[in-house]
């Protein structure tokens, strides 16, 4: 922020920039209107120019976004008066400690398990798709494949959730089709399964899981495909020329090179699942996830400190996740 004005960047960098060609330019400038003079001044003071450019966006995000964020997160270190329902503005760890109460800790664990499951399933579905798009789609088809992933990615989140309500609800499409195929007993047997089952698909853990996978899958496909595109063909040929089976090439050549892409994709699937509160509300067994807990605590429960404490969980998990991902080279794959 202020660093921009205190330490102006070295002006004419070898790569070029706004101050480029300064010498020739200065001799050429004799008659200059106001705009010219202003631009002269800006070019001669690149530090001030950059600062001017910087101030509005930095203020916006710094004050409105970061400011609100810190203000909100700070509440985690206050507590709430159980009876009056008002916030006691005295620093305390008690709210953070509450996260480790069994009821709250269960929510965190459940969310982590769900995010992990969604990430793994997305990777399993995304990999063959990305491999096909990177290796076998040529020319025009490459663009088509790209669009076929881009469009669902950018389609309305809410509409996507809604579409699964149509699919999973009791009189919805999947149960109807299964009934038509006389496979309803199969569905019932599936719903009898412990943990993932439930009364109906739309009120089961499996329902929540499948909707999460559906919504975040494109975020996994794109970086995986990008990583696979960068695998040089001659590397694969060398591998097979040297006598490797296709499966060996896949395991020892393609897979390690695709891994950073998969990890980059997993950042999205993991983070987005951690913070979501709408999918479990619409499709699921009405158990709580971190997002729901935050939503409830700040809303109906009016417990802003606990909401803030819960918010720390995805932030800290993602910081750890990102540092691991960075070490595995995922950022170069983005």
């Amino acid at each position: 922020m202020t660093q921009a004005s205190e330490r102006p960047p070295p002006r004419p960098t070898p790569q070029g920039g706004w101050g480029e060609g300064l010498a020739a330019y200065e001799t050429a400038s004799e008659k200059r209107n106001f705009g010219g003079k202003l631009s002269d001044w800006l070019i001669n003071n690149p530090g001030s120019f950059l600062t001017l450019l910087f101030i509005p966006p930095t203020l916006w995000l710094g004050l409105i976004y970061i400011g609100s964020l810190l203000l909100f997160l700070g509440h985690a270190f206050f507590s709430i008066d159980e009876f009056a329902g008002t916030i006691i503005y005295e620093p305390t760890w008690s709210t953070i400690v509450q996260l480790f109460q069994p009821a709250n800790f269960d929510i965190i664990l459940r969310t982590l398990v769900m995010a992990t499951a969604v990430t793994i399933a997305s990777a399993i579905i995304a990999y063959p798709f990305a491999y096909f798009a990177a290796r076998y789609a040529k020319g025009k088809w490459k663009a088509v494949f790209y669009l076929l992933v881009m469009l669902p990615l950018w389609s309305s989140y809410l509409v996507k959730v809604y579409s699964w309500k149509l699919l999973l609800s009791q009189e919805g499409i999947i149960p109807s089709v299964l009934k038509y195929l006389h496979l309803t007993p199969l569905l019932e047997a599936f719903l009898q399964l412990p943990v993932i089952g439930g009364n109906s698909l739309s009120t089961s853990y499996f329902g929540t899981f499948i909707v999460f996978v559906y919504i975040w899958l494109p975020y996994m496909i794109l970086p995986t495909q990008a990583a696979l595109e960068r695998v040089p063909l001659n590397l694969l040929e060398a591998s097979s020329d040297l006598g490797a089976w296709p499966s060996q090439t896949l395991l020892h050549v393609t897979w390690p090179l695709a891994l950073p892409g998969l990890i980059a994709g997993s950042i999205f699937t993991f983070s987005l699942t951690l913070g979501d509160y709408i999918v479990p509300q619409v499709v699921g067994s009405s158990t709580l996830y971190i997002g729901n807990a935050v939503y409830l605590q700040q809303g109906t429960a009016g417990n802003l400190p606990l909401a803030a404490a819960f918010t720390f969980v995805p932030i800290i998990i993602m910081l750890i996740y990102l540092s691991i991902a960075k070490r595995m080279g995922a950022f170069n794959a983005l």
Partner: protein
Amino acid sequence: MRSETPRPPILLSLATLAALLFIHVPLLLIIVYAFSADVSFQFPPSGFTTNWFVVAFGRADLWKAIGLSLRVASIATMIALLLGTMAAAALWKSRFFGRDYISLMFVLPIALPGIITGIALRSAFNLMDIPFSIWTIMLGHATFCIVVVFNNALARFRRISGSMIEASMDLGADGFQTFRYVVLPQIASALLAGGMLAFALSFDEVIVTVFTSGLENKTLPIWIYEQLFKPRERPITNVAAVIVMLVTIIPVLAAYFLTRDGEHTAGAGK
């Protein structure tokens, strides 16, 4: 090198096809349902009708929601275009202490889950006694729209060759002229694309909006969101869903075609 691409293994093709169907069928079903003659989710529909579109277009509350969404998305996009481009221009060539932290700040609103942005803004509005209005919604949307424009603009700025700017300056153009005639034409399509993506993002945003809209101001996604929990008007909801799909997909397609040829920007070869 082998000149021909070998045929894909059959299992791979099947897995690809399955994934394609998985990500596209649900969205296509929404369209089918918008034309379904039934009031329930019954499948297969007993008949097809365009009647629900007529009914939906006669609804004042739906029009109000569409109007609010359009206004919010337009204002948020304008702010994002201005601030996002400024930030990208400033970060493009500069090197200073803390630069990495500043660039992190410009991606944080998208990197962190939306609920965090939403709640943080809401509690700030509450603490400062700011009443919810179209401006509080817009404030939240602009925050993540800036990120989209910033990323698009920065990616394009990086491809502009420094030698073109040098040449312009050497030939006597001042900084503004260089910006107007050399830099702007090269970044214009990226800005347009960024703006369109920002618009699409804002138009269908719900996660942050839930926290910043209050009870009075219903954007179209908020209208649909409420229908998810008390589904009284399923046919109208289907139509609203199709409208959201169209309004978001058209700008996204346009943005794709605008940036598709970006790699061939003049001078990019250096």
